[in-house]
């Protein structure tokens, strides 16, 4: 589904990703872990199409298409979804208007018919249940005055509505209490299938107790330096990242 080869990315002139390789197939859940500043969020954002991120080298292929050629909305239409680390507040745009526009533009791009108001609301009501959200959310402005937990639940709610093929969760667990974490994880797990894939970017192993990954990668200094199964996450939780760095440094020192 997703093939990232030797990706190098700079933000405001600072190179963050330095030759990153990653392959994700349908049905898989990948966790990207690593210390702060290693490039986790940069990877998530560059996949979603943030324009101020400059691709210096490498390639990203998504279902056979050069992803970097597509604008953010085209990526969304192709099934990529980024759950934002810091969902932005947009006063003056109601959740319902936002979702209806997003859903119908996406459906249009996918050759599906737009939903009318009644179809839309019945779909929305069903999806709200996935994240335990009240209908009142719909009349509020996007993320405005939402608590941290509500913002993250709102991201998963949008994911449920838009039904992506490749979901990228950027530190969705940060700032969540255990109940909210369960709700969010439950939402993600409900949406898992053999046809879609999930990339979970996280700093903490805690989330991976609920969203169990098939692969765990360690991203340090812009490269994936170690990959393993879910036991790697436990090891990282236990021992931190220093041993991975030390392991890297050793051959150079030798």
């Amino acid at each position: 589904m997703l093939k990232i080869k030797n990706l190098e990315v700079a933000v405001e002139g600072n190179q963050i990703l330095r030759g990153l390789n990653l392959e994700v197939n349908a049905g898989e859940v990948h966790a990207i872990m690593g210390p702060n500043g290693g490039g986790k969020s940069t990877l998530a954002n560059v996949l979603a199409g943030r324009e101020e991120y400059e691709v210096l080298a490498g390639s990203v292929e998504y279902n056979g298409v050069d992803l970097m050629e597509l604008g953010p909305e085209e990526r969304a239409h192709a099934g990529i979804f980024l759950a934002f680390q810091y969902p932005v507040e947009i006063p003056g745009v109601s959740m319902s208007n936002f979702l209806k526009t997003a859903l119908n533009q996406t459906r249009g791009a996918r050759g599906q018919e737009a939903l009318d108001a009644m179809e839309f609301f019945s779909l929305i009501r069903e999806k709200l249940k996935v994240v335990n959200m009240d209908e009142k959310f719909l009349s509020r402005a996007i993320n405005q005055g939402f608590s941290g937990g509500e913002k993250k639940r709102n991201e998963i709610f949008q994911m449920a509505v838009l039904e992506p093929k490749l979901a990228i969760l950027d530190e969705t667990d940060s700032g969540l209490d255990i109940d909210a974490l369960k709700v969010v994880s439950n939402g993600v797990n409900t949406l898992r299938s053999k046809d879609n894939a999930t990339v979970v970017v996280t700093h903490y192993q805690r989330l991976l107790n609920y969203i169990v990954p098939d692969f765990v990668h360690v991203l340090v200094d812009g490269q994936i330096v170690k990959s393993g199964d879910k036991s790697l996450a436990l090891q990282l939780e236990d021992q931190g990242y220093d041993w991975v760095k030390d392991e890297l440094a050793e051959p150079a020192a030798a």
Partner: protein
Amino acid sequence: MKQQESKFQDAVDWYISGFAAFEENLNGGSQLPFHKLRKKAVKKLSENGFPGPRDEEWKYTSVAPILGQAFGLPDAPATESSLEIAPLTFEDADRNLLVFVNGSFSKGLSRLTSQAEGVVVCTLSEALQNHADLVNASLGLFTDIGTGGFTALNTAFAAEGTFIHVPDNVELTDVIHIVHIAEPAKPFVVHPRNLFVFGDNTRASLIETFHGQGPGSYFTNLVSEFIVGDNARVDHLKIQQESTEAFHVSNVNVQQKRDSVFSAVNVDLGGALVRNDVNVELAAEHCETHLFGFYLGSGKQHIDNHTFVDHAMAHCFSNELYKGILDGQSKGVFNGKILVRQDAQKTNALQSNKTLLLTDDASINAKPQLEIFADDVKCTHGATIGQLDDEALFYLRARGISEEMAGAMLRHAFISDVLEGIKLDAVRQNLDAQIIERFTDVKSDS
């Protein structure tokens, strides 16, 4: 330059020379008491001329483009207009329509429901004939013809407009919508003159819209007067949608009496050069004033909003919110003056002006002006200038919304709190739809 120093003498001469012919065509009209005011206005125009660049109130708006054209009065319509009026009206607000085409009242396009006893809703010309006492008691009372040349010009040529008189203790159940349509076969100037007198404990909602149809230059020079009685509640929505070649100057004067509430929403969508003055006098205690407005500029439009809130008495509240979205090479001006006189203790006055500049070539001159002579008051003002929020734009696009639509949604969101000032749902929704359509009409003129 010489001409400007002499207060646009050529234009003054042009209009004054037209006055004699205008007078002749008034038939009996020149015998009415109001004609004395016209003559006084001509004198003022001749003495003071039009505002030039040195006039502080007109510093950022040059009226040279308006005065550079020799606008004459429009020809009287030969036949009833065959215009389709329905698209210009609003659901739930179309039972009372007063329609003016090129300044002339169109009886065929207008319609009025029967009004409560004592209520007068008619044209100014009819009112001058049939309700002279009511008109003469109030016309020109709160409009200063001594300074701005355009107000004097309007007064000199005022012959048509709308007169509303609502006696004490009457609530108008239906909205009154005044529609001004310009179809400029050749360039012309119209001077609509409105007088709205609301008695004590009255309630009314007015909509006034200005539409330019087809190409061609023209000039709308409006003066409106509102007298809002004790405990009266009056809503006024003005939507200016003149053509892109049109000039629009409007001067709205409001006097509020005790415990009254006046709420205005002023919308500017069209016009090449637009200047709106709204002057509100809170003349007695416990008045409440809401002045909302938004303006959308594109191409080379110039839109100037001047407001003056005069807190003359104690315990009054005024709340002002103006927002502009300027695209292309458009220019905006906002000057919000709040005067709190010595007797106006416990005044609470708020003012906010926010502008979105969509291009490097768009600009705004924003000037809040507070003059406070009372010591126990609460006044706040703020002006911000910004661009579209890139983070918000990316968020919407990342959810599959096109860049064009995302930009439209954010621009609409920017003015949504002003739109919410429009209390009539059907009208607000209609305007919402028009605005979204305009925002998604890809940069047609920028």
